[in-house]
């Protein structure tokens, strides 16, 4: 085998390892919800090709107010779905949309776009 072929093989394997590490294993930063004057937990999420932040931690038994700021027009991101809460909401483009939830159970809850390609996670803790 030529030098070139060896480079391609080694480079390819390295790239595959890196991709799987980056998408599946790399730890994502968890952001904690702030609490406003009325005891409502506030989570601001920018929607642009994904959810930023994508992993949010909140406390149980306290209302959570999401403010989704959608900064793009077309694409899957026009809808946000919380399957665990049976909630779906349309997010108008270039606007902030509020969505309120009352998490009564601890655990990890996914939220996704309408096609479930974009994903985020809501961690409910005691």
């Amino acid at each position, binding site marked *: *085998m030529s030098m*070139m*072929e060896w480079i*391609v*093989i080694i480079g*390819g*394997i390295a*790239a*595959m390892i890196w*991709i*799987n590490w*980056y*998408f*599946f294993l*790399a730890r*994502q930063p968890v952001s904690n919800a702030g609490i406003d004057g009325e005891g409502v937990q506030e989570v601001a999420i920018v929607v*642009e*090709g*994904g*959810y*930023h*932040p*994508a992993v949010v931690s909140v406390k149980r038994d306290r209302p959570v107010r999401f*403010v989704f*700021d959608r*900064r*793009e*027009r*077309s*694409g*899957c991101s*026009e*809808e946000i*779905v919380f*399957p665990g809460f*049976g*909630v*779906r*909401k*349309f997010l*108008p*483009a*270039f*606007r*902030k949309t*509020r969505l309120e939830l009352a998490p009564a159970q601890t655990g990890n809850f996914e939220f*996704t776009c*309408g*096609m*479930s*390609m*974009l*994903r985020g996670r809501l961690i409910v803790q005691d």
Partner: protein
Amino acid sequence: MPTTIPLMVREKRNLTGTAEYGTNAATTSEKVMIPVKGMTCAACQARVQRALQATPGVLDASVNLMLKNAAVTYDPMVTSPMVLVEAIHETGYGAELVAQDQSAFDEQEAQDRAQEEDYRELRHKALWSGSIGLLAMTLSMPLMGAAEADVHGPVADPFMRWVMESMTPTIRAVAPWLYTFTPWVLSYALTLLVMGWAGRHFYVRAWSAFRHHSADMNTLIAVGTGAAFLYSVLATVAPKFFLNRGVLPDLYYEAVVMIIALILTGNALEARAKRQTSAALRRLVELQPNTARVVRAGAEVDIPVNDVQSEEIVIVRPGERIPVDGAIISGTSAVDESMVTGESLPVEKQPGDRLIGGTINRTGAFRYRATTLGSDSVLAHIVKLMRDAQGSRAPIQRLADQVSGIFVPIVLSLAIATFVIWFVTADQAPAMRAFAAAVAVLIIACPCAMGLAVPTAVMVATGKGAEGGILIKGGESLQRAGQINTVVLDKTGTITEGRPTVTDVVPVLGTEWSETDLVRLVASIEASSEHPLAEAIVRYANEQSLPLATADSFQSVTGRGATGMVDGAALAVGNEALMADYAVDLTAVKEEVERLAGEGKTPMYIAINGKLAGLIAVADPIKPTSRDAVQRLNRLGLTVVMLTGDHQRTAEAIARKAGIDRVVAGVLPDGKVVEVRRRQQAGEVVAMVGDGINDAPALAQADVGFAIGTGTDIALEASDVTLMRNDLPGVVSAILLARRTMRTMKQNLVWAFVYNVVGIPVAAGILYPAFGILLSPILAGAAMAFSSVSVVTNSLRLRRARVA
């Protein structure tokens, strides 16, 4: 095609944040109307207004004394309607939010508008990039004729190469001047234009997703086309680098443009088809009229429908749409309610009858009193329910969800593996082959079809249901309704009319009382009773225009009947126990009683002055559609069970008439839950059909609860399926629709999986060693566009499914 008819004077219209593409404007304001109670003078008005204006986040507040409400424009990021109500309370006046959330209509409208814009933009971009692609192809023709040693390299895409090779002789004959210059610079510029303009969002979104450790279809398209483009640029600027290594400096410019054009075309078609999946919901939203004619200060005025107040008098003429829910005060008419209830014949309406906003008045003119408004109206409830239903997940989707979540990174890995394997094993032009195959893998493997498979079917099915007056709560209900094997029917009000009617009046031979006498006397004392059986007798007397006497005394004997004095006669009407109390001899009617009970009728004995005078039989007749519906349920292979609190004999007689052979009689309301649970434990998937109010626990217990003939909140809450029409055929339709939908979902999922399972290896070149087939990235782009469009189109076929 403008589909956005202004439905109401929408409160959220005055948004300051415009939806300009590319801007980041985010300041919004919302307007809310809050009814204020207790204001009597201009000073009160001023006080409330000041308090509101002083509330943080309030941009504008105006209080109307006459209409007794406050219109507040506020910043939803700072305050909320609840806070505003609180502020009014603090001034000492009453306030509560009536139409707090009009969003069902609003959201749907906004979504429709956004989707329409999306579609237009995609179509526009697809057309332009397609045209540019053709131009770039033509310009590249001369390259095909160039020598292999040409430093600017040949067109690399196999499909493109074939197209160009077959066209070159023609082009050479028609436009020889094309061959006089080297057009790679133009190709390059056109490609850059398409990538930077029409395809820009693929790259922007892919990058944005990547930064957050996620990847979607944009990632695949961006990586695929981006790599092809970069490779071509390198081949253009440094061909020697390739040639020195024995690799041809291939160009993929046209391929990139064509891939983007094809994917955009696919997306545009998909957007159009997706719009169609919610067409039924859109039609419902459009039912809401704009204006209403109301009586104010003695005059008839046309006002925006949102300004109609509760209890206001509304006037409707023939042919007009009924603007809001209400109840008729004067006039009669036939109303076409088909768009809401699915009832195809116009419904006769008289004073006192309920009207549903959005339905069409056919014949007469009438006045009615507005009742539920805005978000409380029947139509708003339906729209809200539908929106929720369409956003819900069906359990069958879980697998697809899991797969699409991990799909893209795995495809990226597969593309790299494809490249490596081709590079190492190909005999000739290894880099070119490796490259084309890797790009094809990236482009063909779009998870869109998987993501669309179930939701589009749920959307079309729930819409189709709603058009027939069948409201399905969501994907899960739909899926379970497709698996039902037992249908438990509540008797009263479900199989039967739920309204007892007098069927027989039998005077005892040899007494002085005629049939008419009996009815008149019994009705006279029963007029004081509120028992449903008594009501039936009184109605029967009224229908025959018998003048009722005033009872001198009346006594209701719980569980037995009633006694009283009418026209000097001492009457006792009731069951055997009551007769026993008065020691009345019943032998004369024994046979008759047997016969009546055998027919499912409830006989009541009539004794006058201590002697048996006759019988009056009452029955709850079955609905004309019940028997046919039960037969159809049986034909679908379902076990049909009737539940009733009646005695065994009566129950059996009704069941016989309805064609049901399984009867559970004598059950109390709790017993219904027990029966449903017992069958579930035996492994049956049970549907419970009831009227939604007293059957709520059983409806909730059942795998699928069907509430029949009500649009009430309780029914909507407890049931999985609500039938707007008050009879059983809707149950059959719902089950047929659910089964049909399940089939569609499965087809879609299988198709989406198979497409990827077959498509990816073919793109990777698995057919090459045996058949010499290598998939062009352009064809991969076409296949990708086709896969999601075909899934949506398959779901749309549900609209034409026969379920009646």
